[in-house]
């Protein structure tokens, strides 16, 4: 199972970013970077007082609050009206109080804090009595942390206006509510996290500032230009942990520790989740996505640095819970009746609060519910301080239990959880138990399973080395109205049987071939599989099939299966079978579509090759084709014919110097041909030129009958003259789309469309400004030479983040006679989507 998942090092590094120990190399690197952002460290360097103080000694795992009880602070109802604190150990609500809260409550050492309008409210943790309120000026309250007798909180003004932008840190006496100190920053800062007498704050994703909690004075500051810091979590329990913004990457730092590195496997966890919530994002009291998608791993100091407590980490996706071993293996999974509001992991397992107010503690090893409770009301947001020290010994969940849980998650009709359902399917595909194959077939056949998940099953089943018996048994199922049974999921079964060379399945496959409930799309797959698995044995039945239906209207719309059968029998040794296609080609009643295929096949010497190669001769089983023609496939095809389009548009430009774009709309037929071409602008010459060329193109075949498609050729001023950022495509390390692409590398969410950063329009024309173009055209007309083509216009393929989707840029060798050769850099500058 482990081998199926990519392992990506998620650096949990200790010590490197420690303050006084911050390496010179990092500062060196920071200095070498362009100063696009004003860093906090620049202004605070003078105030660095040096030293890092005493590294906290990690305490025994237990709740951080002074009561030492596992507590949950929650806001109930919508709108949020009640704040309550629940004692998980006692299984009861300690107190509740009415408050029109606007921020998620936070459990501090002595207090529970939240906000109401522009004021932070503090309640006694033990009694719920309101201690004090502290007003703030900035619109966003990020959160608070307690350092000894002081509560430090951050507020910020999130705006691009530099005159308004900024943040404020305020320290309040926890007992009296009086202000101890206040600091203002020009940057966006994170919520503070305090440990002993230190408070840690991130700024603008790159700086880590250390403050003296008592005075607010800066103790140290470090900038990490290459790593976006997204969260900071300092506690006596685990030391200082700082997280990067890359999905699931965690950069942990503990002062004055020797750097160490651990790794967590990336198991295609659903959602782009961080190991801790972003410290920059305010969490509202009302129902929100916060907490519903989370990656949770209890990090504890170990002999060599940080380690996962209990060797478990968890992912939460709305109602789905997954527990993983440190090596990425699935340990258990659960589908909850309600969305998760907040969860906390510790060595003993996972504590989860759900929207319906239920509280559950799941055992780390078995996933069993060790503790349950109810907050007595629907919950909109919550904060947990429930760390439990010792895990309760328990038996690990069995493979059958895990399969059952994963199947339940995969069959959950909640469309929000699609990535989690995909993850469950991947886990089942990797499961060593043979019975998982039956589960996967059931998932494939279930009405609630969307096509994207079915495709995952289809793609994964051939790679499974176990459970073949379940595949063959599934072929015994047939449609039966009285029994309410369905035909077998051939699209999932057949490719797997072929991949595993299961010749014993041949009789059952033949039965399906003559079953009227086998769909046309699956018939193509079946014929191909029978030809591959059956060899000479397949000749007679395929011949019967071909002969029986060669004139039947059942195949009038799609004769692919018959054509595949014809190719298979044509290469049979048996004379009667091998001559059948030729005989059918001569019959007047043979279906026109089949007739064409037969004629083409008879003139094609490839038809003499082995039956097993039936699918390789230009014909594909229909089921193997995509359902529709994708935009990417359209782009690919146009990119292949860039030169053709270039010629037509070059001819049009002298006639229409103001031409900026050409739109080609057409109907793509399922066989890849085109019809009903419409060109905009609709000039006769351009239409004639492009239509002729388009009719000669062949797009990839697809299953659905016909489809509207369009493509826009954009003409842009020459990049070299208009865009200073033009350059080689690789020189985009600082661009926002590259960043998005990098961030998405580990994304597992099934995309519904090509990523936005992929060039949606890989082909464009890079032209000189219109005036130059007109002059050039006039010169061309006057000279009657090829000089007109001396590069007033240079169409080329646009660069794209993904080079595989685009045509390479023009090269000097591509230049037409008389055309000025241009370097790729002349033509390349980024084009966003134009569709």
């Amino acid at each position, binding site marked *: 199972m482990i081998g199926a998942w990519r392992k990506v090092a998620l650096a949990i590094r200790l010590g490197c970013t420690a303050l006084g120990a911050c390496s010179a190399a990092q500062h060196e690197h920071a200095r070498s970077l362009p100063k696009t952002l004003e860093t906090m460290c620049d202004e605070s360097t003078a105030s660095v007082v040096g030293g890092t103080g005493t590294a906290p000694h990690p305490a025994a795992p237990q709740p951080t609050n002074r009561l030492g009880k596992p507590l949950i602070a929650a806001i109930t109802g919508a709108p949020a009206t009640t704040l309550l604190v629940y004692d998980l150990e006692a299984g009861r609500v300690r107190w509740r109080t009415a408050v029109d809260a606007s921020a998620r409550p936070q459990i501090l050492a002595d207090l529970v804090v939240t906000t109401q309008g522009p004021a932070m409210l503090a309640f006694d943790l033990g009694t719920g009595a309101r201690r004090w309120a502290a007003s703030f000026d900035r619109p966003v309250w990020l959160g608070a942390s307690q350092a000894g007798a002081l509560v430090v909180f951050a507020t910020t003004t999130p705006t691009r206006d530099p005159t308004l932008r900024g943040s404020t840190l305020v320290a309040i006496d926890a007992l009296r509510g009086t202000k101890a100190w206040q600091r203002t920053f020009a940057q966006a800062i994170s919520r503070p996290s305090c440990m002993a007498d230190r408070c840690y704050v991130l700024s603008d994703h790159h700086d880590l500032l250390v403050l003296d909690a008592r005075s607010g004075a800066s103790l140290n500051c470090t900038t990490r230009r290459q790593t976006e810091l997204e969260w900071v979590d300092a506690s006596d329990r685990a030391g200082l942990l700082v997280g990067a913004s890359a999905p699931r990457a965690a950069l942990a730092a503990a002062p004055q520790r020797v750097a160490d590195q651990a790794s967590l496997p990336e198991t295609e966890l659903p959602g782009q989740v961080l190991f801790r919530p972003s410290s920059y994002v305010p969490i509202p009291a009302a129902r929100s996505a916060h907490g519903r998608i989370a990656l949770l791993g209890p990090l504890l100091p170990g002999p060599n640095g940080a380690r996962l407590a209990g060797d478990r980490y968890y992912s939460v996706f709305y109602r789905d819970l997954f527990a993983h071993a440190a090596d990425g293996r699935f340990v258990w999974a659960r589908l909850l009746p309600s969305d998760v509001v907040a969860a906390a992991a510790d060595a003993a397992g996972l504590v989860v609060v759900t929207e319906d107010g239920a509280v559950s503690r799941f055992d780390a090893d078995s996933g069993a519910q060790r503790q349950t409770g109810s907050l007595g009301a629907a919950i909109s947001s919550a904060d947990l301080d429930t760390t439990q020290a010792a895990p309760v010994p328990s038996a690990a969940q069995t493979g059958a239990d895990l399969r059952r849980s994963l199947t339940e998650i995969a069959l959950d009709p909640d469309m929000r959880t699609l990535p989690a359902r995909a993850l469950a399917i991947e886990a089942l595909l990797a499961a060593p138990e043979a019975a998982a194959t039956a589960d996967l077939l059931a998932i494939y056949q279930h009405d609630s399973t969307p096509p994207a998940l079915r495709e995952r099953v289809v793609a994964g089943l051939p790679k499974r080395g176990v459970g073949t018996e379940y595949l063959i048994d599934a072929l015994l199922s047939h449609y039966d*109205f*009285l029994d309410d049974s369905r035909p077998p999921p051939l699209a999932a079964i057949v490719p797997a049987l072929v991949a595993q060379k299961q010749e014993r399945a041949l009789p059952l496959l033949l039965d399906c071939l003559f079953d009227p409930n086998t769909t046309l799309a699956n018939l193509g797959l079946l014929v191909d599989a029978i030809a591959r698995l059956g060899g000479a044995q397949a000749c007679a039945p395929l011949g019967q099939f071909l002969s029986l239906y060669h004139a039947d*209207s059942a195949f009038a719309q799609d004769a692919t299966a018959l054509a595949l059968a014809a190719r298979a029998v044509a290469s049979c040794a048996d004379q009667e079978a091998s001559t059948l296609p030729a005989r059918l080609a001569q019959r*007047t009643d043979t279906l026109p579509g089949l007739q064409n295929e037969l004629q083409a096949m008879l003139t094609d010497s490839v038809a003499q090759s082995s039956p097993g190669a039936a699918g390789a001769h230009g014909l594909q089983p229909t089921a193997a084709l995509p359902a529709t023609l994708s935009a990417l496939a359209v782009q690919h095809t146009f990119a292949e014919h860039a030169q053709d389009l270039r010629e037509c548009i070059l001819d049009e430009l002298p006639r229409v110097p103001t031409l900026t774009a050409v739109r080609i709309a057409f109907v793509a037929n399922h066989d890849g041909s085109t019809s009903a071409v419409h060109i905009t602008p609709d000039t006769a010459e351009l239409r004639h030129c492009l239509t002729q060329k388009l009719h000669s193109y062949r797009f990839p075949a697809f299953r659905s009958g016909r489809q509207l498609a369009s493509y826009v050729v954009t003409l842009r001023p020459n990049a070299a003259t208009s865009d200073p950022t033009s350059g080689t495509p690789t020189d985009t390390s600082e661009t926002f789309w590259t960043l998005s692409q990098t961030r998405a590398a580990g994304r597992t969410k099934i995309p519904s469309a090509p990523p936005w950063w992929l060039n949606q329009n890989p082909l464009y024309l890079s032209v000189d400004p219109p005036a130059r173009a007109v002059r050039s055209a006039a010169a061309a007309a006057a000279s009657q030479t090829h000089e007109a083509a001396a590069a007033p216009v240079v169409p080329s393929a646009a660069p794209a983040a993904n080079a595989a989707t685009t045509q390479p840029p023009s090269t000097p060798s591509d230049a037409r006679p008389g055309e000025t050769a241009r370097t790729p850099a002349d033509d390349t500058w980024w084009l966003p989507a134009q569709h």
Partner: protein
Amino acid sequence: LAACCVGGALWLRSSSATAAEPARRAHSAQAETEQLCAQLAKPDTTAQALVLVQRLAETRSAAANACLVQALLAGQADAVTDLIVDALSETTEPTALDALVRFTRHRRAQTRGHAYAALARARGAAASAWLEQGLRDSDAGVRALAARALGEHGGASALDSLLRALGRGEAEAAIAIGKLGDAASLQRFAAYLGKQPLDVMLAGYQRYLERTDLDRATKLHIVATLEDITGEPVRAFMQSLLARPSIAADAQLSGALRGSLSRLRHAGKPAAAAAAPRTEPSR
């Protein structure tokens, strides 16, 4: 003598010609069949193929049937296929029956329907097992045809399948059950009251009541059951039954119907829950 000789010769010639005529005709028919068969193997048009099939079917010979089976298995245009299947209903030859059974799994539902109908015509009650298979078909038309054919040709053994088909919403099964079911089947049939549309159930009850092989007590029990259902559709149904000669002739049964009608009119009971909404049978 000469006259005798001539007369004898003429007699001999005449008698030998009389003896050779059937053989000659048979030979001629065989030759014609072979010719038609050869043409059917490579017809120029579908219309021509249809004419050839028609002519072959009219010969009713074993050779013609064999030729039709061969042509059927070799694959034909839709109309030709269906015509051959119909034509094979006239024979009971095993090869033809095998072909018909095979075509009950044809890809086109229309051809499957033709095959089931042909089997029912060809084999009568012996086709019951195949027709029961027809109740399992994915096409509603084929299922309805199979149910009707079972109603005509099926035996009590088909009741189980018909009742299951009724439970799955196959309306024609109710009529077939009414035609085939015995007194004991009534209780199982009545179990679908309230689950299947009332008009479907009433159609089944009508067939029960029209039967001559069912005893009067059973029919009176049906009338009592209908009275319990109540409602305007039941009153209209009872009224229509009284107009039927087969029922009107039975004084006791018609009397019971009139009595029920009278009570229903005066009671004015609300419509019973038996009227399940009419739904399309699911596939």
